């Protein structure tokens, strides 16, 4: 079997492991809801205090001691580790097959971006309990990988002259890292919005089907988590723009020319900048700021898919 085919097989294997993780995470969320519905009021207050006082490591950990063993969550975490490792091997093999850095087209971008999102999630989970994010992070990643394999796939091959540059490693690498981090931040903000709506009694979210929302941290600590990730993502995105501009100066003979990809990268940047401002503007922090994250992430996704597939700009390296 050729290395390139092995790489694809490993992507499928990773998807399988992550699908198992997804189901286990979901079971864990549901089960904890059943078991612990009674103690929720207390736990919520505890979490709120932890978030406000800013004590280290306590922001999302419910009071310890009363916690039953969470078998499903254990299975979910280990399968996530396995899936992430498989994905990493798949990426490395893809690079070997093509004989270059494995992030030069949409398929590879999807693989590596998904890997970064998983890595951020796993990295966070070594420092605090973020297992409530698991369902959504693995869910999104399985979706992305399925799209990648079925829609974006192109055969592994060399690079056209415009891409033969060390900036491919830096510019695209940083763009992917930013996208992966913003993905996890987006999940946190969506949960923040949902939990906040449930707390304030929105009828739809008050149904029993949404009881699991009581088990995610308070909107306050979700907002903090989202902000931290978004701050890192925003700095990386800024660097993506600057790096892209430096590269464009070399490759296309101008650093900025309002090419479609440039326009949308700019829009994304401005939306996240607005988010950072909204957070600190009276009357705009909290829910409204979280909506900026949702819009910003939608723009990130559009910049990746829509701009590559619909418009025909200089930046059409998807190979499709």
């Amino acid at each position: 079997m050729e290395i390139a085919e092995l790489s694809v097989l490993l992507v499928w294997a990773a998807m399988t492991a992550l699908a198992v993780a997804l189901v286990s995470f979901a079971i864990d969320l549901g089960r904890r809801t059943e078991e612990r519905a009674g103690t929720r009021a207390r736990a919520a207050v505890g979490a709120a205090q932890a978030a406000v006082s800013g004590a280290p490591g306590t922001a999302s950990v419910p009071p310890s001691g009363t916690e039953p063993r969470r078998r499903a969550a254990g299975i979910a975490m280990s399968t996530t580790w396995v899936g992430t490792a498989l994905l990493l091997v798949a990426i490395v093999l893809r690079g070997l097959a093509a004989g270059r850095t494995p992030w030069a087209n949409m398929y590879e971008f999807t693989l590596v971006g998904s890997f970064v999102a998983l890595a951020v999630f796993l990295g966070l989970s070594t420092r605090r309990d973020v297992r409530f994010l698991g369902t959504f992070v693995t869910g999104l990643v399985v979706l992305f990988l399925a799209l990648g394999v079925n829609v974006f796939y192109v055969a592994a091959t060399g690079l056209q002259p415009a891409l033969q540059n060390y900036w491919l490693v830096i510019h695209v690498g940083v763009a992917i890292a930013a996208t992966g981090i913003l993905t996890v931040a987006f999940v946190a903000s969506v949960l923040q919005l949902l939990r906040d709506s449930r707390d304030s009694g929105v009828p739809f979210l008050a149904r029993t089907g949404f009881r699991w929302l009581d088990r995610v941290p308070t909107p306050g600590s979700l907002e903090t988590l989202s902000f931290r990730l978004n701050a890192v993502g925003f700095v990386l995105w800024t660097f993506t723009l600057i790096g892209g501009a430096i590269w464009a100066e070399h490759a296309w003979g101008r650093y900025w020319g309002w090419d479609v990809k440039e326009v949308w990268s700019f829009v994304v940047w401005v939306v996240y900048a607005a988010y950072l401002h909204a957070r600190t503007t009276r009357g705009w922090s909290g829910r409204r700021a979280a909506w900026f994250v949702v819009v910003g992430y939608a723009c990130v996704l559009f910049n990746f898919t829509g701009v590559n597939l619909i418009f025909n700009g200089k930046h059409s390296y998807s190979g499709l």
Partner: protein
Amino acid sequence: MSDSTTYRPEGIADEFSEGSYAEQVPPSGTGPTLPALGWRGTLRWTWRQLTSMRVALMLLMLLAVAAVPGSILPQRPQDPAAVLTYLADNPTAGEWLDRLGFFDVYSSVWFSAIYLMLFVSLVGCIVPRTAAHARAMRDRPPRTPARFERFPARAETTTSATPDEVTDAVVAHLRGRVRWLPVFRVDAGAEEARSARGRVPGRPATRTVAAERGYLRETGNLVFHLALLGLLVSVVLGQLLHYRGQAIVTEGRGFANAVVDYDTFESGEWFSPRSLVPFSMTLDEFSSEFASDRVAFAQARDFTAYVTVTEPDGESSAETIKVNHPLQIDGSKIYLQGNGFAPEITVNDAEGQVAFSGRVPFLPEDQMYTSRGVVKVPDVSAGLEQIGLVGYFLPTAVVEQDGSARSVFPQPRDPLLVLEVYRGDLGLDEGVPQNVYRLDTANLTASVGEDGERVKVLLRPGETADLPDGLGTVTLGEDVPRYVALDLRHDPSLAWVLTFSLLALAGLAVSLFTPRRRVWVRSWSEADPADGAGRTVTRVEVAGLARGDDAGLQDEVDRALGAVPCRESASDTSATDTTTEG
């Protein structure tokens, strides 16, 4: 902790992030109302509105929205031909869109207005904040609060060192090792003994330390915003001073850096032709590589132009230009933007006179370098009709059964030139500028064969063929020279654009990731309860406060406590006790 939700770290408010500097002016809650203050009042009111956070936020959102149409509608600077097509397809809507600047969004009045207002708002925000920050840098850290209980991070210990020794050691630790860049700004003080008052218990005389770190946070923020301003100014200056020229050069030929030598030349308002350094350049050779494996068949792998550059002082050097590796000469860059074949074509007219001889660049139209070109032959002998040739150059030609030909590889393995022939008036004499790559066939007659089909003249290198209708002959040269499309660009502002971008990035990172913390220490002597002889020990309390959620705060407090010395080592360490709230 019932007041936890309303707890605000006192005194650490940073105008920018805790609401806004200018927002204090319109009372919060109620919407802005226009006060009857006359025109000066109105002006001031307008200024405050413009520089408020809320307006900056609105402008940012507007900017994001306003940038979008430019990615949907064709834009003149990028693709003028697409704009013309759009206008032809949508005459009514197109005209209105055009009037409103939708085909050049990024220099339209409304787009410019948004970002200019944003920058005005930014200046209005930055100037007072810079002043306030400069003041804060000179101020002393906030006084040591009376009670430490309400602070989120605390620690305490007892030691045998005196309060003075404790204070000196902690101050030294907090300042850090680098003299000129202290980690904390520190203020050591003393408090008189004090008797109990209300809920506040009495206390003996104490030594205090008040310290604050994280001024860089605000500095970074200001640097970021100022750098954005610098970026805008540099970009505008670049627009005014830059120039760019395009030239097509064939192998063995060259060009000089002079306005007249370029095929197209474009420059900013403040450009002066004197800024063109008069070097010259020859293209010695052009080489290209293409993949021949199955997966990526015929995909480009490398383009290299080998050139010789002669500087004004007569010195010459051999250089290469590649995609991604422009050639730098005297502050200008020369880019390899395109390449193709420029076959050498000679046309003899019906009287046998050479009517045209030269290299004709053919523009590649697909991956296999199927290239289209035009030969205009106006200078035929007197009394003859002018000749126009249109056709394709195929680097590796395959001729099908039906006579049609196509190229199957981009390298010149088996070149073929296929031409159609026109005669009549080329329309060159009216003085109207014409595109050299298009033949205006309005006043021309095509040569057709007996079957009514256009006659196609096929030529391989070195061959000569008769033109139909007795128009003469056409010859294709033995070698097929390559040409490169070069783009020379000079923009003196580049270094500034880069500097300000990197400054903005650095400022942003510093302002987002620098922790802002305050630490207070209080130490005093009291009788040692474990000592019958009535000796005293020193009690030390440390409290910490951070802006926002800060996972490292307790560590910071613990480290400060760790700096507390003890005279009889080992005996006191067990008394160290760390408290964490929450």
